[in-house]
Structures are given as structure tokens and as C-alpha cells.
């Protein structure tokens, strides 16, 4: 048998995104030149997207263990113990590049992929969240991308019957040519019934289930490992098309197959399709797989082994069934109208052997493909522009003159404004578990059959990460945890989706490494393990990189479920308390961008010890039933937080009268600065003393600033020797109009 008919041309190697060094290594592994099919298989498996070649050495630093961890990174998704014999299975993944090329399908298939990652583990998905980044909406292209992505997420998630319960959307022109679409999914599985991607048991049948294989998405993984330029438009055919109906059938069929105990292992055919699923399952089990392409269901005749192995057609699974159970598996697939076929056997020689029409067309050690790809410790160096970015001379910026107008313009900044236009298009209630709907600090979803609920939040401020990647990434962890705690949840696990530019650039690598350090230190401080994740490099177009954007999805546990707290004021007469200290933190704020068109300075100080004390205090107060509402103070500072407390409730609007002592701070820093470690509480007046005492005991600064009352938000800033007093005064209608309706107005103007 001759596997290589002609030597591979040099430009073909380059077209496959492989370096000369990498090609040499392939020849070394095979002991011969690869053929075209094999070259394609190596190309996708050794791409940045699949091999994590630039990130792996650094990802190892993240804390991934803990008493609750049932499954850490390396599987389809991570899992943490939530008691009652159950675990929460979750992961977040990017679909940035496809979403830029074709927003609807790119986003839809992103949702489809993350759902499969979760249900292959044996978990029924119960919640989706999406973290999105776009350029500002004054540009038609950005509106097109935003609308298309939201419609794609809705189209897929709604049809699947999995509620999309939250996430975030941030707008900044740096994402104009490279939007981010990160999809998060959480499912619930029995702890003793977690499924893994293992090709175990020599002789067991390898089965293909789901959509037929077509020519779509070939080299999607390689595309996602490259930067964009004008020619990217021509890559449209590599974006896959989603079919949520088939995925719904696949979900139900998989859960039924697992329930009937017919499977040994299972893996989604995601990026790099049949190649990745087969070699990864074989490699994890230390086995081989003998694959016969003749039996693979296909959409069109004449497909070559190269195309079949590299296709990224959606809604497909590769399963290892128990020997002798083939007929039962086929019968269940037939019930759900799904294509299914036995396409191979597990072997003991560690080789992924691919046959087509009786001929061996590829023969590669599975481990070499899946795990022995190149690893790079790429050079890193702080960018020359870093000093300029951090230099912020506040003395040349006048303090705020018209604080009411400043508040209103912040409220209608699309990053801060209500995202109701977005989540109204998502079915966020199906499965009837959504205790806290989108629009509060975290989404809260109950676990039926238990007394528990999970809270979920996603967070990352890319601007902070640009200005100081270490601090910015740490703040992302702290803020995600704070959002959960404000909902009454104890943080128990984390998934990360690390979006960066081109790792071959030392400045990008510098951002990446510092971000990992920031996440690591913050996770260790909070005792929250990272159980799954994804890295997306090459987020740049025409040489312009996105801000470093390590998005975190954090999961917390609420017990009992009815303890969940929301962010909005509940009742007139309640007292408003600010926990945590306000400092001169104007660097990197949304206020600075909106009012002074600057994205500069150092991000707010992150004091991990103070943050821990604050979060413990909020949890204790909620646990004692003392808290009416709790809202994390972040984008837009104290004034925006208070305004949101007044108008973000879905059922009522309540005013507030507040007086702030400046304590030597600039007015703008006091009102709009983004000091971390702060939470705005409202509590019944009868318990104010108790709340302040608890805070004092736990070492958390706490001050009563006013009360919930009337139909206006009034914030008085007292005069001190640094300056005169000032006042924010706006009626609730105006506040709601600017915060609640501006996004809709922007989008529906055309």
C-alpha cells in the first residue's frame, strides 16, 4: 500500500497554515511524507484553534482543582458538584470569526456547538448565556452584525428549547472589524453518569449519529486560526449552517441513548469534525480507531476522504457504543429520524486508520494528531504604547459641570443601556426554571427536584485589560463573583473564553500571559477553580487587534433557591447602603470615554482581600434575610448603579434621595468612578443598625447614603474644601427613557 503518491508541494503546506518546522515534525512522526488527506488532518489538529499551541504552556498555571471539581479542563465541558448527586456541567466557547463573516449562521452554530459540548457529557442543558462585543452602533456594518448575531442566537437557542437567560453586550469601536461572540451553556447531569470522550474497549463499534456530512465548514478551524483582511469575505463558504431542529432531535436521542446505558464514550464533531472527534477519543483512551468512510452518511456524492475528514457540518456526534448494542442504538436514532451508522471499531494499536472504498487513505498515530502538536513559548514584551495608555493627567480634565446630563448620557451609552431589545428576542423562560430573568446582576435558574438554584454571570472589561492586563483580568474574576454574590449565590466554578489578537506578536503574548496571571491570582484568592475554557487568538483585522478580552463565565450556588436577590429597589422607605470604599478611580472608565473621549489611565485598584471581605459580607447579609436588593457597582459608577436600582425592575420604578460626602474626591470620580469592591444595598430601615454592625465586624466600609422614596432620583453631593456641592436630579420617566429605550431607538431608526 502506498499512502503518499506524490510529494506535497511547498505552497500547499503554507496554504494549510503549517510552518516548515511543523511539516518536518509530521514527516518525522509518520516516517514518510503525508498524503493530502493526512496533511489536511494534521493542519486542522495542529491549528491554534485545536492544539492550543501558543497558549497551552500558560493555561497550565490556572487553578483547576477543588473539592467540588468533578471534571476539570480537557473534556468536552467541565463539571462541579452541586450536591444531591448532581453536577453542573458548563463551558464557554467563542465563535468570533464565523460571526464576522456571516453573523446569523456564525452565532447560531456557536450556540449549537456549546450545547453539544454540554449534552455530550450526559447533561441536559438548562441555560445559555452570550457575551458579545461589537463596534459602536453609529456604523451600519456594526448594526448589521449586532442584529444578525442576536437573531442567530435566538434562532438556534429558542428552537432548542434551552432558555438564553443572560450575558452581556459591550460596544467599542475596537471590535468593529472583529466582533466577539462567546456562548456559554450550563447543563445538569447526575454525578455518577457523566459521559466522556473516550474510545475505550477494543472492538467496540464507532458510530456516527446526526446530520449528513457535506462540504461545509472545511477548514473552519484553520480559518479561526488566522487574522482577517479584505479577502476574508471570500471565506464565507467555510462558515457552517446550523439546523437547530436536527440538534434538538440529537439532544433527545443522545440523552435517551445514555439513559439506556448503550454508550461507552461520545464526542461532538465540532471544529475539525470527524478528524478531531476520532483522534481525540482514541488518544484519551490510549487506543486507536479504524474508521471506514464508506459508511459515513453524506449529503452529496463524490466527496473525497479529505473533505469527509475535514468537514465541519453541524449537528453530528461520534459515539463509542457497547459491543452488541449497535441495533439498539440504530433503533433509537431511527425513532428520532436521525441518520446513524457504524463507521469503525476501536483498535489497540493507537493508530487512527481511515479507509475509503476498501483502501487505506490515512494512517496516523492518534496521539500524535491530538496531543503531540507543536507547543510554543512565544516571545512576549510590553507594547511600546503601554506607557502612553496608562498616562492619564486628570489635572487637565475639568471636573463634571452638569452631573445630571452626564448621568443621562452614560445611561444611554449602549454598553450601559438596558439590553431588553436583545433578550426579548431570546426565549428566556422555557423549561420554567428562570427565577431571575435577564436584566439583573446574574441570571438565576432553579434545579427542579432540589431546593437549589444556580446563578450565572459573564464578565470582562476589555478596556481595563488593555490598560493593565493583569489587573483587568483579575477584576473580571472579581466582578463575576460579585455579580453572583449580589444574587445570593456562592461562586463554585469558572469557565474562561480568552479572546486575544495574534499570538505571534510579542505585545499580544504579553497581554495574554499577564491576563492568565491575573485570572490565576484572583481565582486562588476566591477559591474558585477554572473547569473548562477556550482560547481564541488572531482576533485582528488588517493588523488592528481587539482589546485583550478574557471573558469569564462564573457559576454560583443558591440554597435555598428562594433566597435569590435582584438588583432593583423593592419598596419606598427602604434605606440605601453602599458597601466598600470609593476612591479616585477614573482611569479606564466609561465616563472618561463618554465625557472626555479618552480610554486611558490605570484601571481601578483591585484589592483582593477587601473584595473577599465585601463578598463574604454580602452573602452573610443575604443569608440572614436582611437584604431587599443588591447591585454590583461597576460601569458608570455609583450614579449609574443607583439609577439602575430605580428603573431596572420589570414591574415598578422607585425613586431615591441620596446624599454623598465627597471626602476629598473629584465630583466625577465620586459619581462616575468605577472603584471595585462596591455594592449598593437596599434594606428595611429596621435592620440598618444590624447591617452596619455586620459590615463593621467583617471589616467592610459601609455607609447609609439615603432612602428609596418619591418619583425622582436625587443625588446631592456635599460641598467640601475642594469644591462646591452639586446635584443630580432626574425624574424616573426620563431615566427610564434614556436607559431603557435608547438601544431600541438606535436599532429601529432605519
Amino acid at each position, binding site marked *: 500500500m502506498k499512502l503518499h503518491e506524490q510529494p506535497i508541494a511547498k505552497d500547499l503546506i503554507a496554504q494549510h497554515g503549517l510552518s516548515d518546522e511543523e511539516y518536518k515534525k509530521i514527516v518525522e512522526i509518520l516516517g514518510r511524507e503525508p498524503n493530502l488527506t493526512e496533511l489536511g488532518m494534521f493542519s486542522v489538529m495542529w491549528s491554534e484553534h485545536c492544539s492550543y499551541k501558543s497558549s497551552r504552556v500558560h493555561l497550565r498555571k490556572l487553578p483547576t482543582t477543588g473539592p467540588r471539581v468533578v471534571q476539570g479542563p480537557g473534556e468536552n465541558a467541565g463539571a462541579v458538584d452541586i450536591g444531591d448527586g448532581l453536577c453542573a456541567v458548563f463551558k464557554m466557547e467563542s465563535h468570533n470569526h464565523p460571526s464576522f463573516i456571516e453573523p446569523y449562521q456564525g452565532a447560531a452554530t456557536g450556540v449549537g456547538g456549546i450545547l453539544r459540548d454540554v449534552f455530550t457529557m450526559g447533561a441536559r442543558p438548562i441555560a445559555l448565556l452570550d457575551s458579545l462585543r461589537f463596534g459602536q452602533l453609529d456604523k451600519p456594518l456594526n448594526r448589521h452584525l449586532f442584529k444578525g448575531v442576536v*437573531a442567530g442566537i*435566538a*434562532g438556534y437557542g*429558542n*428552537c*432548542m*428549547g434551552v432558555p438564553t437567560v443572560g450575558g452581556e453586550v459591550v460596544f467599542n469601536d475596537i471590535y468593529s472589524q472583529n466582533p466577539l461572540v462567546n456562548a456559554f451553556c450550563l447543563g445538569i447531569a447526575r454525578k455518577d453518569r457523566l459521559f466522556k470522550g473516550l474510545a475505550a474497549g477494543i472492538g467496540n463499534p464507532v458510530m456516527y449519529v446526526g446530520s449528513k456530512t457535506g462540504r461545509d465548514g472545511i477548514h473552519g478551524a484553520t480559518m479561526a486560526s488566522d487574522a482577517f483582511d479584505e479577502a476574508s469575505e471570500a471565506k464565507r463558504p467555510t462558515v457552517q449552517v446550523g*439546523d*437547530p*431542529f*436536527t440538534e*434538538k*432531535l440529537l439532544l433527545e436521542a443522545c440523552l435517551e441513548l445514555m439513559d439506556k446505558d448503550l454508550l461507552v464514550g461520545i464526542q461532538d464533531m465540532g471544529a475539525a469534525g470527524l478528524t478531531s472527534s476520532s483522534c481525540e477519543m482514541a488518544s484519551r483512551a490510549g487506543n486507536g480507531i479504524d474508521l471506514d468512510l464508506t459508511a459515513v452518511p453524506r449529503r452529496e456524492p463524490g466527496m473525497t476522504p479529505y473533505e469527509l475528514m475535514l468537514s465541519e457540518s453541524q449537528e453530528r456526534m461520534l459515539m463509542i457504543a457497547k459491543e452488541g448494542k449497535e441495533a439498539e442504538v440504530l433503533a433509537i436514532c431511527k425513532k*428520532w*429520524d436521525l441518520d446513524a451508522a457504524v463507521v469503525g471499531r476501536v483498535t489497540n494499536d493507537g493508530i487512527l486508520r481511515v479507509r475509503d472504498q476498501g483502501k487505506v487513505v490515512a494512517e496516523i498515530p492518534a496521539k500524535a494528531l491530538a496531543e503531540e502538536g507543536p507547543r510554543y513559548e512565544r516571545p512576549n514584551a510590553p507594547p511600546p504604547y503601554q506607557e502612553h495608555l496608562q498616562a492619564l493627567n486628570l489635572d487637565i480634565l475639568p471636573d463634571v459641570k452638569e452631573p445630571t446630563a452626564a448621568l443621562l448620557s452614560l445611561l444611554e451609552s449602549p454598553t450601559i443601556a438596558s439590553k431588553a431589545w436583545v*433578550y*426579548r*428576542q*431570546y*426565549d*428566556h*423562560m*422555557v*423549561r*420554567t426554571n*428562570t*427565577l431571575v430573568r435577564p436584566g439583573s446582576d446574574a441570571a438565576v435558574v*432553579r434545579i*427542579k427536584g432540589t431546593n437549589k438554584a444556580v446563578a450565572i454571570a459573564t464578565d470582562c472589561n476589555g478596556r481595563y485589560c488593555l490598560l493593565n492586563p493583569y489587573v483587568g483580568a483579575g477584576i473580571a474574576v472579581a466582578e463575576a463573583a460579585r455579580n453572583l454574590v449580589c444574587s445570593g449565590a456562592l461562586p463554585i466554578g469558572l469557565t474562561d473564553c480568552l479572546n486575544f489578537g495574534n499570538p505571534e506578536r510579542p505585545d499580544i503574548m504579553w497581554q495574554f500571559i499577564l491576563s492568565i496571571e491575573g485570572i490565576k491570582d484572583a481565582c486562588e484568592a476566591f477559591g474558585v477553580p477554572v473547569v473548562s475554557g477556550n482560547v481564541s487568538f488572531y482576533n485582528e483585522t488588517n493588523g488592528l487587534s481587539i482589546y485583550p478580552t478574557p471573558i469569564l463565565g462564573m457559576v454560583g450556588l443558591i440554597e435555598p*433557591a*428562594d433566597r435569590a436577590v435582584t438588583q432593583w429597589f423593592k419598596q419606598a422607605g427602604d434605606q440605601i447602603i453602599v458597601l466598600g470604599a470609593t476612591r479616585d478611580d477614573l482611569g479606564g472608565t466609561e465616563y472618561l470615554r463618554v465625557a472626555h473621549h479618552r480610554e486611558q489611565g490605570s484601571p481601578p485598584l483591585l484589592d483582593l482581600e477587601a473584595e473577599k471581605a465585601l463578598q463574604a459580607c454580602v452573602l452573610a447579609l443575604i443569608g440572614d434575610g436582611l437584604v431587599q436588593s443588591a447591585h454590583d457597582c461597576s460601569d458608570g459608577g455609583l450614579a449609574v448603579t443607583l439609577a439602575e436600582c430605580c428603573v431596572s425592575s*420589570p414591574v415598578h420604578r422607585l425613586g431615591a434621595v441620596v446624599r454623598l460626602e465627597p471626602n476629598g474626591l473629584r465630583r466625577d470620580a465620586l459619581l462616575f468612578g468605577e472603584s471595585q469592591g462596591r455594592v449598593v444595598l437596599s434594606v428595611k430601615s429596621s435592620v440598618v443598625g444590624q447591617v452596619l454592625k455586620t459590615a463593621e465586624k467583617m471589616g467592610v466600609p459601609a455607609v447609609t447614603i439615603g432612602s428609596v422614596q418619591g418619583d425622582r432620583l436625587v443625588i446631592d453631593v456635599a460641598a467640601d474644601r475642594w469644591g462646591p456641592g452639586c446635584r443630580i436630579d432626574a425624574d424616573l420617566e426620563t431615566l427610564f427613557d434614556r436607559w431603557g429605550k435608547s438601544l431600541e431607538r438606535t436599532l429601529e431608526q432605519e
Partner: protein
Amino acid sequence: MNFGVIVFPGSNCDHDCIHVLSDVLGQKAIPVWHKESTLDGLDAIILPGGFSYGDYLRTGAIARFSPVMGAVKQFADEGGMVLGICNGFQILLEAGLLPGAMLRNRSLSFICRDVHVRVENAATPFTGRCRPGQVLKIPIAHADGNYYTDDVMLSQMKAAAQVVFRYCTADGQVTPEANPNGSLDHIAGVRNAAGNVLGMMPHPERSAEAVLGNDDGKLIFLSMLDALQKAKLKAVLT
């Protein structure tokens, strides 16, 4: 009572209906696969929401050919209670068990939020627990809920009190602003002429527990239970 919840490929509110009937109301509720051909032993049938056959072609257009629909039609013809919610309503329209058709929402996009509906006919087996004109808060979640029929049919339906729910404001005013999807005459739910088949776009199973924000939707299921118990009692007595 024994409830059957039909499961079409792509149904996704089947679990939610079964949860409310069994866990909240303590009834027996079983999934009925769409390839079944009989509904023996069942007291009432629910066609749940979702995306049967992916909503491909047109909502409900393929599901109406499922084998079970013959049995559903027979069940209805014999006076059995059939409730179609959202996609279930769309399937009943396509199957001709209810009059009218669904168009795309006026906004052309999917809408998921709480709406208010006014009970226009409280003398049906699905609304017996409601007062005439009572306002219920129940969520909608659909892209095709823009109800349409021709003038002749509409006047017939009005004459026969077949319009059971209309979209309204929180205080019961039927206004264009309170109509979320452009539905003709603000219609949110209709019954058949005989009165034993109801289709509604809002999801009562999503608002049947106080922990989810409100439990107005429970009234629909409690009304059905009342009617079934009354019918059973009558059957025993005669």
C-alpha cells in the same frame, strides 16, 4: 385526571406542561409520542409549545400530518378537551381543528415577555375559574403569533363567543400598544364552535407557580380540572 401531552419532534414545552400538571397540580400527565395512533385512557390532551419540525415550511404545517393527529381529531370530535399552547395552537390551526391562521409577528422578530390578556369568555371549560373580563398576566414566546382570519369568519367567531382571550393593558384596556404581535382584533386565544378545543399563544405553564413571578396561568389548568371532574361526576350520576 389523566392528561396526555403530545410530543412532536421539536416540541420543547412538553416537560414544562407535564411539570405543572404533575408536580404543581398532582395530576397524572404522560408524554404521548407523535407516532401513537390512539389516546385511550386520557381525559384531556395538550399540544405543547415548541418548534415542531423546526417550524420549517410554516409553523405547524408538517406536524399536522403526524399519525397522532388523527386520534386528536377523533378525540376532539367526541367532545374531549384539547388545549393547544403556542406551537400547539399553530398545529390546531393547520389541522383545521380551530379557525384562522398565523402570520409573522408585526415586528418580524421573536418576542419573549409577559403580556396581559383579558378573558373574553369565562364560560368555557378552560376559563371557568376566571371572572369575565379578568386580566391575566401570562408570558408569550413566539415569532408567529399574529392571528388572522377573514371578515366572515371573524364575525361568526365573535357571534359564537369563540374569542376567548384578547391582548390588553394591565388594567384591561384593549389598545394597539398592548397588542404585541399585530394580531387581528387583538386575539390571543380562540375556541372551536363546540367549545372543547382551545388554542392560545400565551404560555400558561410558564406562569403557574408563584416562585416564577406569578401564577395566573394556573387558572387555565384548574379550570380544565374543574370541567373534567364535573363531566366525570355527571357520567357517574347518569
